[in-house]
């Protein structure tokens, strides 16, 4: 990236390099030119017009947002919208409370719930058997038993209740929208995509307090927040499945004169079935990842013990309920997948139905007996206390204490090296340039890599960032996000290729990836803080832990799908393993790499708020500030929208760039 190697044009605010000459120089070279010019101008102007603001100052736009919120709050007793939503919220509370008294909390005057643990375990196991067979039944039974054995029966039931209601609502809303998304024209798809991007990147902390305002505290707020975050995956994925039903099939069936409704229900939905199941699956995972956030507004579930352990810096006791969330996630993931496979098998008539009915009837009677017992006997109603939970908590505690004591110096050195070697120089350039210089540079890079297609979204997002008044913070966040995504991609390529080439490695690593994706970050924040201190690097680590799994999985799948004949052809010409990976597997898996980078980036963005809680400052801190102090809500909202804009901008540039690549 040496400055002299480029032939920069020196006037400040230089126009982006002319695009029409692109064909003569490769794109990366043009990228270097832009960066070179940027660095040169930065050298003369750094520190000017950076739009840095004291932490507690705010702009008129931010103040206006706060005042808007206050106006809604002041009108809550008369505002018909608030009245309506509040009523809906009350219904959610009633429904959740009824289910809780059924399986989770004492239904007074009964000292215990209507159905005790034995009945619930039996019913769940039976449902697993009915839906997907013996292996899943055992998995479900063992998972439910673990809730009680580790001492979190009631909280686990609560989380299942909230997740169940939220996912049901998400499916009810999501499937019709998915049908629209899968059949709409280009404008419709673009509009829906933008709304979904907004819902997935807007940090929950921003809308937590408004949701409480509209729907009330507790279960209702938990359900609503969870639905908002969990509905996009099913729309996206199921919509994609519906759109990709082969055109020939549709033409063939259309020729028989079917109506649009028939085409939808008889052809498109059935053929997109397995994709829709994947969508429901991802929606469930997203719902579970809201467990701890919902606990901030008294949402019932396993998030509550995780949070209260966090307030005591009690790593062990945060770990146990956190791990149970992972257990629930894995259980639901494997069950829905297996259930979908099993019903396909059944539809193809590969199952002895009579035998199956007999087994289900016999085991069903057994389950009902268990339910009856759990209503009669205390031992079957209240899970006996064990020492499993505390034992594991202590073990985890001493494990992490050992880790921090042993590696503290080393990790601090790594953190300093990355911060001083990569993060600080990059942040100096991006955040300490005058705002117009960074904006022009981003625009030029968008043009170079994404072409004209990327230009409009980039301009819109940059203008939005400027108007919201958190430019300096946004640029610091952007720097961290870029560094974290880079680390994610390094991990994804190294581990992904390794997993694709060695099946044992895949089997060994995959459970950790599942756990990384679903364990609440609050569980590992304290050990990470102890290792790296409150710093931007800690925030980056948290982002990488959360984002790397999805990227690694995508790269592994992509590399594995490179056709074996191509690979054998390469081997027959005597290429080394290194050549095989770099010349064949990675280039052929390019699509997956782009997708992995894109998803990795969005996942990293969703951890920016957590970053604000571990000393990274910038937009994440602004959001936590807005969620903590009512007079700062507008600043938090502005920061939230800024994150959305950053996400959409980077996403559009990357997509446009990937398209130009394949052209």
């Amino acid at each position, binding site marked *: 990236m040496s400055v002299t190697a480029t032939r920069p044009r020196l006037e400040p605010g230089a126009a982006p390099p002319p695009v029409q000459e692109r064909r003569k120089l490769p794109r990366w070279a043009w990228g270097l030119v832009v960066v070179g010019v940027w660095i040169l101008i930065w050298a003369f102007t750094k520190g000017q017009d950076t739009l840095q603001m004291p932490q507690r100052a705010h702009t008129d736009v931010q103040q206006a947002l706060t005042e808007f919120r206050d106006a809604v709050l002041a009108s809550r007793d008369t505002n018909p919208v608030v009245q309506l939503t509040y009523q809906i919220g009350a219904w959610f509370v009633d429904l959740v409370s009824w289910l809780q008294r059924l399986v989770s909390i*004492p239904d*007074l005057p009964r000292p215990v719930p209507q159905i005790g643990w034995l009945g619930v375990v039996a019913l769940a196991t039976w449902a697993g058997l009915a839906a997907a067979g013996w292996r899943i039944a055992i998995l479900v039974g063992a998972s439910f038993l673990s809730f009680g054995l580790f001492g979190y029966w009631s909280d686990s039931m609560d989380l299942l209740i909230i997740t169940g209601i939220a996912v049901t609502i998400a499916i009810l809303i999501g499937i019709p929208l998915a049908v629209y998304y899968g059949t709409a024209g280009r404008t419709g798809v673009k509009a829906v995509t933008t709304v979904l991007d907004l819902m997935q990147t807007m940090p929950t902390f921003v809308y937590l307090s408004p949701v409480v305002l509209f729907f009330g505290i507790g279960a209702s707020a938990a359900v609503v927040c969870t639905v908002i975050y969990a509905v996009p995956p099913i729309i996206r994925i199921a919509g994609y499945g519906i759109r990709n039903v082969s055109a020939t099939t549709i033409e063939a069936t259309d020729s028989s004169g079917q109506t649009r409704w028939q085409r939808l229900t008889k052809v498109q939905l059935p053929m997109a079935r397995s994709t829709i199941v994947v969508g429901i699956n991802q929606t469930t995972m997203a719902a579970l990842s809201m467990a701890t956030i919902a606990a901030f507004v008294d949402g019932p579930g396993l998030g509550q013990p995780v949070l209260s352990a966090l307030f005591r810096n009690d790593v062990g006791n945060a770990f146990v309920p956190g791990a149970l969330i992972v257990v629930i996630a894995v259980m639901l993931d494997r069950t829905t997948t297996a259930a979908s496979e099993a019903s396909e098998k059944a539809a193809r008539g590969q199952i002895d139905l009579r035998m199956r009915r007999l087994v289900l009837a016999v085991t069903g009677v057994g389950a009902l007996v268990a339910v009856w017992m759990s209503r009669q006997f205390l031992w079957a109603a209240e899970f006996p206390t064990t020492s499993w939970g505390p034992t594991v908590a202590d073990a985890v505690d001493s494990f992490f204490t050992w880790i921090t004591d042993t590696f503290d110096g080393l990790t601090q050195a790594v953190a300093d090296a990355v911060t001083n070697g990569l993060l600080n120089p990059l942040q100096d350039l991006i955040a300490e340039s005058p705002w117009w210089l960074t904006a022009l540079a981003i625009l030029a890079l968008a043009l170079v890599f994404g072409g004209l297609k990327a230009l409009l979204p980039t301009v819109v997002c940059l203008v939005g960032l400027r108007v919201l008044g958190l430019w300096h913070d946004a640029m610091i966040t952007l720097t961290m996000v870029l560094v974290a995504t880079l680390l994610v991609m390094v991990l994804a390529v190294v581990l992904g290729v390794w997993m694709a080439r060695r099946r044992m490695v895949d089997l060994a690593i995959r459970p950790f990836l599942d756990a990384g994706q679903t364990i609440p970050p609050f569980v590992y924040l304290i050990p990470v803080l102890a290792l790296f201190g409150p710093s931007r690097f800690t925030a980056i680590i948290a982002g990488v832990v959360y984002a790397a799994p999805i990227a690694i999985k995508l790269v592994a799948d992509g590399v594995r799908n490179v056709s074996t004949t191509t690979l054998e052809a390469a081997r027959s010409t005597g290429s080394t393993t290194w050549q095989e990976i770099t010349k064949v597997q990675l280039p052929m898996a390019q699509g997956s790499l782009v997708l992995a980078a894109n998803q990795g980036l969005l996942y990293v963005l969703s951890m920016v708020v957590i970053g604000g809680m571990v000393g990274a400052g910038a937009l994440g801190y602004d959001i936590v500030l807005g969620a903590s102090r009512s007079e700062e809500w507008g600043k938090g909202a502005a920061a939230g929208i800024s994150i959305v804009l950053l996400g959409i901008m980077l996403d559009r540039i990357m997509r446009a760039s990937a398209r130009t690549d394949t052209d």
Partner: protein
Amino acid sequence: MHIGGKHSGRKQGSRLAAAACAMVVLAGCGGSSIDDQTKENESKAGGGDCGEVNMAINPWVGYEASAYVVGAVAESELGCTMNYKELKEDVSWQGFGTGEVDVVIEDWGHPDLEKKFFAEAGDGSAEDFGPNGNVGIIGWFVPPWLAEEHPDILEYENLNKYAKEFSTSESGGKGQFLGADPSYVQFDEAIVSNLGLDFKVVFSGSEAASITAFQQAEKNKEFLIGYFYEPQWLFADVDLQRVNLPEYTDGCQDDPAKVDCDYPETELKKIVSTSWVDEGGPAVDLVKNFTWTNDDQNLVAKYISEDGMKPADAAKKWVDENQDKVDAWLG
């Protein structure tokens, strides 16, 4: 419309019984015990006229200690049903007007929320119920090893001498001052610049991050200075030492940009829902009369954080050991 308290409803006794039963012959274990307890509960119901109390639990251990002690007394002496709701301050105050929250037992001062919800300027859904006896001490603190090895560090005039030692990868060459969770009112950026200190405020962003940082600094003998406060359970573990800033005088914190003095001592107070007070009931008087000292709170907080007791058990233990103080609240 709210859910019977999950935390309160659990009966320790029935748990033990369940464990015992599981060990004895399964079916032989009193099949009627659920029925018995149901009947017992039915006869108990209608005895007290207290009803339900919605107690906000703001996210720190000291608060939890106060809330559960009041709750334990309300349950055992007055027959109330306690609903504990884990909420941040902002959301708790929103709940006063909707009947979802009745009591905030420890408030550190929220002028903005008072403006919105007190009768003087706002909708009147909340009111000040007087001090709870705890005194909040906010200030700049260093880990004990540092105070011992460099006693002069406890005077702010000497801080610049050590600025280099305090620098980190985050502080851009200056000394790092660790700001706190944004829930707390902080003037440190102004204080640093108005006292001419060569420091940069880096915000930890959460209590957990601040606590971890101080624990590590003490363990590894690292330089660290930051915003902290008492009462806090951490002091039982790491006895942080306060740095002297220019003394607080009335009005010296009125203009946030010009602050150059220490934080004042804060009288922590109780905030309650106006409609809940109007309904009356025995728990109202209990909350009105409740007051205890920092030492009292620290002891219960220690039971919870250090000894790993459940908040309800810790509160019960303290109540049993301090019946005289409890009697005073019951009037």
